[in-house]
Structure formats: structure tokens, C-alpha cells
């Protein structure tokens, strides 16, 4: 997995690319936690270039979502496709996240 990030307005946009599994999810969690520690509260996680997520990855995203909420912040998901969307759906997570087609749509919603 590779992690790309950009900042637009006051939003930290994190884009994991490749595979978020039991091994690589820690990279995502560390990056997110560093954002929280630096005072970030608004996050978009762009999954459009992620092609694999296991339950460990799903848990990592859910944990980040809860941490953002605990800081009165928000974390939005966008760009879910294929097996990644399916994993969110099968796990039941999709019903609890509002998801957006792309980063621009998510930014408009914040």
C-alpha cells in the first residue's frame, strides 16, 4: 500500500493506494493519528485507488471515523469501487457511512 495525501481548504485528504490489509492498515492508522495529534479534525479518505480491503482495514477506517467524531470532527469516505465497495457493503459498514463519488463531492459536503 502507498499513502498519498493532500490538503484542500482545512481538510486532510488521505488516499491509500493498493492493498489495505492486516499488515498495511497500521500505516494508514499512524498517518491518521498524526493528523489528529497535529490538530486536524476534517478528513476525507479517498478509496478510489484502493483495490483490496480486509476486515483489519475496515476496522482501521472505522476507528479513524470514531476518533474524528470524538474530536467533534468529521471523516468522509469517497471513491469506493469494486471489491472495496463490496467489503463495506458485506460488513454492514456501508449503511453507517455516508459515501461520496469523489473528493470534490465530499469537500462540498463538509
Amino acid at each position, binding site marked *: 500500500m502507498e499513502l498519498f495525501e493532500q490538503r484542500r481548504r482545512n481538510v486532510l485528504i488521505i488516499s491509500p493506494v493498493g492493498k489495505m*490489509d*492486516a*499488515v498495511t492498515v497500521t500505516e494508514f492508522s499512524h498517518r491518521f493519528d498524526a493528523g489528529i495529534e497535529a490538530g486536524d479534525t476534517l478528513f476525507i479518505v479517498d478509496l478510489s485507488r484502493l*483495490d*483490496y480491503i*480486509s*476486515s*483489519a482495514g*475496515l*476496522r482501521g477506517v*472505522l476507528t479513524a*471515523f*470514531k476518533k474524528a467524531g470524538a474530536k467533534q470532527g468529521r471523516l468522509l469516505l469517497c471513491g469506493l469501487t*469494486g*471489491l472495496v465497495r*463490496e*467489503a463495506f457493503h*458485506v*460488513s*454492514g*459498514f456501508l*449503511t*453507517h457511512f455516508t459515501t461520496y463519488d469523489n473528493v470534490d463531492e465530499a469537500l462540498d459536503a463538509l
Partner: protein
Amino acid sequence: MKPLLNIVLPASQEHMEPLRDAATAIARESGFSAELIARVELAVEEALTNVILHAYADGTGNVSLSCIYDDGGQLAFTLTDSGVAFDPTAAASAGKGLSTGKRAVGGVGIDLLRHNADRLSYRRTNGKNILELMFNPESGQP
């Protein structure tokens, strides 16, 4: 029938990836579609993770992974451990409909395992959990 794969390793986190990747390599060599390879990868990761996290109360024990083509031409992976009895085909799912805070998060892996394998079968024999994951090369959608 000679197994395509037969590996025994301690059931620890560091061995999830090499075991999973060995399974994925076989699916790739078998000419599976990219989507089906990813389904094999996901189902095997979830099955392994379950053994690694929950099978052995004292944290030590082995997991074995083997693979054959069965009579019907399906790829059949067998995961064996000697830990506490656990049947993933019967376990409760994560419980859709509960709020994210209340869901049995551990059940998510079981949901993904069941969804991505074409067929799962479990038996408990001589103190061992034996889980078979079958994949049909013709299958587009499980």
C-alpha cells in the same frame, strides 16, 4: 493427490502475509481472473486472521495451509489448527443493522470469509479445526 501447497507455520501475525500470498500465487498460476484472485486472497486472509487471533488461548500453536484441485476442478484450500473449537460456517455474523459502535466487529472477518469463498466446509476431527475453502474457476460472483 499431490497437494499444490502444504505449509505449516506458527499461527502468528507475521505469518499471515506469507501464507496468504502463497494461496494467492496458486490462484494466479491457475489462471483465475483478477477478481477471483482477490476473492481468494481476502477469504484466506480472513480465515488465517481468525486462527491467529482466536485459536490459541496461550498464543502458541500451528496453522497449516494446503491446497488441491478437487474432483470437480475447484481449487480447495484447507486450513487446519489445533486450537479451540470454532466453526466459521455457524458463527454469528457481525450483525447488520446494529450501530457501528455496537457491532460485533470480530464478525466482520467471518462475513467477508463467507461472502468471498464459493463454498466453505468445517469439521472438527481429533481435536483439530479443519476448514475448507473452495473456489470455482468459472465463478464470477460467489
